[in-house]
């Protein structure tokens, strides 16, 4: 097991047990982990295996920006010699801020549209530090316990907002979400792609 300590780790270390718990819920055996610096934002990555085979997990300590999502996709694509059967992205639900959960999912799905193995896990360590992960995309889940109850009756690939059962009832600071439509988000994703093309 490798651990690289590159910068402030407090929030990440606090959140990491949640990743471990969530990974177990997903039937993943952790094999390797590291911390990756990316444009000043640190995220933790693990490599493990589940019933399907090799899998990769990436955990963000803050909700990633559109630019960071693109960078992460580039980094994942650039990993050579590995055929991951599942890729899990862990993001803090409480920091989605004004985006709103369902629109965050649309944003991420827009960026990762050509990577069907990606599953998004929103965790919520600000409101619930007990290690409960909220699974929102059931595409590649083979879970049991509370997670299975949440996912019961869902079709693979269906997005379900399962955040309510875990809410502590405390108001989130940015309580009034400004929801963006799929078309609006799509326009901004296109703008980001165009800008990346201009700068590259």
């Amino acid at each position, binding site marked *: 097991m490798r651990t690289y300590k590159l910068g402030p780790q407090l929030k990440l270390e606090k959140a990491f047990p949640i990743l471990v718990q969530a990974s177990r819920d997903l039937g993943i055996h952790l094999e390797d982990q590291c911390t990756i610096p990316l444009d000043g934002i640190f995220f933790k990555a693990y490599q493990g295996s589940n019933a399907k085979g090799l899998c990769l997990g990436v955990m963000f300590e803050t909700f990633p920006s559109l*630019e960071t999502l693109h960078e992460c996709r580039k980094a994942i694509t650039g990993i050579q010699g590995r055929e991951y059967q599942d890729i899990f992205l862990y993001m803090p639900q409480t920091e989605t801020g004004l985006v709103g959960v369902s629109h965050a999912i649309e944003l991420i799905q827009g960026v990762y549209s050509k990577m069907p193995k990606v599953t998004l896990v929103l965790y919520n360590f600000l409101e619930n530090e007990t290690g409960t992960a909220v699974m929102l995309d059931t595409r590649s889940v083979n879970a049991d316990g509370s997670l299975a109850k949440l996912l019961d009756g869902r079709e693979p690939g269906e997005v379900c907002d399962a955040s309510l059962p875990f809410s502590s009832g405390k108001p989130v600071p*940015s309580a009034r979400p400004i929801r*963006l439509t799929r078309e609006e988000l799509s*326009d901004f994703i296109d*703008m980001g792609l165009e800008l990346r093309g201009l700068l590259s």
Partner: protein
Amino acid sequence: MRPLERKLKRGLQDVSGIFRAKNSAPDPVLLSNESDPKTVAVVNPGNFGDTLFLNSYLASLTAACGHSSAVISIGQAKKGDGRGSHRFSNSRRLAVPHVSILWDEFEMLCAKPLSLHRADQPGYPMVFVNTEYAHSSKVSKIAPILNKCILAVSPTVDSLLEAYRFIKGLHVYNQNLQYYLLFEGTTAGETGCILFERFAAILSRHLGINLVWLGHLNPLYSGSDDPELELEPLFHKDFSSTESPSGIALGQLIASLLNEYPTAAAS
């Protein structure tokens, strides 16, 4: 008269000042006058740190263009806040009056704006409103009195995404608001122009809002006339906006407070 001659002869220079030649005389019909008071908010969506500086800086530049301006901060009560000289901050270094009022005072003003509105009481034609724009509950109270909103953002997609969310939220409370955009930091060049065009197109398509370009804001520039900024569009008369009695009252409130405490304001 031939049909062709009946068409309106309308060029780009009639649509916006940015297409007008630098040496051409400004159209006096389009310029606002002192009897046309405006309330302006300068916001930095996604990073609502020091909006007082942004408001004061833009107000000082506006004043340098010959439009007397003032800044009013609306906020929570702090220790030592109250009547008198505590109302005046040290934004005099930017050569504009700055007055602070509390939220309850603002709400009283909105409830009875005409009590302060006197024909013989001159106000400030440009009032920059500084408050906690990150809180939606505050925005819902402020938005109806605003005429113009200047978005100061970084030339990145993420900043523009935050700006879009902010505008979408504000649009619910005030659909007559005129929006302006400026990029903070060093000149973004062609990339900045492309970003502005794309962002303006998204705003127009989804929200029906026309965005006006103000250029680049360089906070390190210490002169009174920032060469990267194009402030002239800010003074154009917007025929779609309506004057808010509360907005007029804010300008008069600042003037009356400065008259009431001239020593504090001048010191």
